[in-house]
């Protein structure tokens, strides 16, 4: 059974202005169907306002569907009794690391989730220790989060989710506020957790290099799913991507331009190595 199922999901935000009549309805998610298998690494792309964050919040039960339903391990997010279980199984990491760290000491922050789950003291310690080890931050366990770099803080935030031992982690632009070094650390961590611990990853991102880590890409546009496939399938449709206002990786872009000029290159090129290899055949 798929770990995550999104069925005919529609979400409308209702904003109320100064007067009652000033009501406005924004359809952020417009009839989406997704099914995610355990262990997948999915990148979610889409321009600003396409509904990526809204989708992410539905999976964790932070937003409720206006229509349709979301199932995490078969549990309906609309049922209040499921919520704690769902949140433990599908953790979410947000963009700004500062705004999701609750504790004043690193280890106490990591313990926040297990504490809320009402775990016994020894189990909390075990989980905190292994979560900090998993993100490589054991040396900072007694530090104050305020003294850490952005990348380190984001790793603590991930450790806080890992301590709940979820099967699935949703990351909403986790590297958007980080410098290149912090970004590399966080990405390799996410990749490793997916490979080694078989944790299902859904990562919202704008960075093409990050997208290539995934084995499936979902492109969103105006609250709908515009494309859904492997990186190769998605990036071979350069025209379509451009129409959606999105970039493609540099190698794919270059191959596309060369094809426009009549160079016979295959459409599946997404990395530099593949481009070099094909070009070498002409020499």
């Amino acid at each position, binding site marked *: 059974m798929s770990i995550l199922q999104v069925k005919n999901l529609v979400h409308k935000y209702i904003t109320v202005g100064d007067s009652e009549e000033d009501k406005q309805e924004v359809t952020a998610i417009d009839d989406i169907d997704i099914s995610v298998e355990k262990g997948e690494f999915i990148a979610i792309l889409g321009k600003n306002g396409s509904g990526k964050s809204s989708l992410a*919040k539905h999976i*964790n039960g*932070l937003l409720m569907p206006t229509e349709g339903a979301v199932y995490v391990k078969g549990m309906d997010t609309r049922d209040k009794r499921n919520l*704690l279980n769902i*949140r*433990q199984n599908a*953790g*979410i990491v*947000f963009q*700004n690391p*500062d*705004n*999701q*760290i*609750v*504790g*004043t*000491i690193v*280890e*106490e922050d990591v*313990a*926040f*989730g*297990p*504490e*809320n*789950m*009402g*775990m*016994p*003291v020894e189990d*909390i*310690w075990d989980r*905190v220790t292994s979560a900090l080890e998993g993100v490589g931050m054991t040396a900072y366990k007694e530090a104050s*989060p*305020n*003294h850490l770099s952005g990348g380190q803080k984001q790793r603590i935030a991930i450790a*806080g*989710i890992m301590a*709940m031992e979820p099967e699935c982690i949703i990351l909403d632009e986790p590297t958007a506020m980080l410098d290149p070094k912090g970004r590399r650390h966080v990405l390799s961590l996410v990749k490793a957790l997916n490979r080694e611990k078989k944790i299902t990853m859904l990562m919202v991102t704008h960075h093409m290099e990050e997208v290539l880590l995934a084995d499936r890409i979902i492109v969103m546009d105006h609250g709908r799913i515009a494309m859904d496939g492997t990186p190769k399938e998605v990036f071979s449709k350069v025209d379509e991507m451009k129409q959606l206002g999105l970039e493609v990786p540099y190698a794919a872009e270059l191959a596309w331009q060369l094809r426009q000029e009549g160079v016979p290159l295959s459409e599946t090129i997404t990395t530099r190595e593949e481009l070099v290899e094909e070009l070498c055949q002409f020499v």
Partner: protein
Amino acid sequence: MLKDITIGQYYKTDSMIHRLDPRVKLFGTLVYVVTLFLHKSPVSYVMSLLFLIAVIGISKVPVKFIVRGLKAVAVILVFSVGINIFFIPGEPLVKIGVLRISRAGIKTAVYLGSRLIMLVLGTSLLTFTTTPNELTDGLDKSLGFFNKIKIPVHEIAMMMSIALRFIPILTEELDKIMKAQTARGIDFESGGLLKRMKSMVPIIVPLFVAAVRRANDLALAMESRCYHGGQGRTKMKPLIYETRDFIAYLILLVFLAAMIYLGFFSPWR
């Protein structure tokens, strides 16, 4: 730097007082403050002072740190002592112009002054030896009975600890906003009071907006990490009484009884 600002001032060292359960220290501070107001004779003052000196000694907090806390209240101290010295009526001992100092005045001023000093020193010892986290945990646990009269103790303690986490972040943000507004030509230094207060508006408004945005984000993050109030929540570092805590409680009760005796029943009342 701004990042290092904390509430109160924790002095990190390893002493018997530091290791005590925060609930004991909260109770101790309460007892000490209450007994200060039972004082009527020099004997009780001396007792209080000896007790304070003993605790400071055990706590290993350097005296210069503790005395520094007095600076903050120096003005109040001088003011209240001054008023008492000059305005308590009685047979004048010294006359300086229209001012006259009576024996009763000196007596009250000395009592009041020493009471204030001991109050400040005693309470600051609590923050010197207890981390803010322990303090909120202690409040959370020891005020549990307030829950019965519908005072949300857990929520208040949680708010306090979140405030502790965000104060340095918001101070940094304030610093950024001030720099950004200075770059736009806002002058915070010159002008009258009204003008200066007006120039604060472009700082307060963005700071407030940023704080609300952060609060909103944090609420979402907490909820996504299964936070659902204090119910069914366990602690990574639960407060557990040790033998030393019971001994401390005993000492405090003996002290309280002694002070009550001195204040109400002893011959030196």
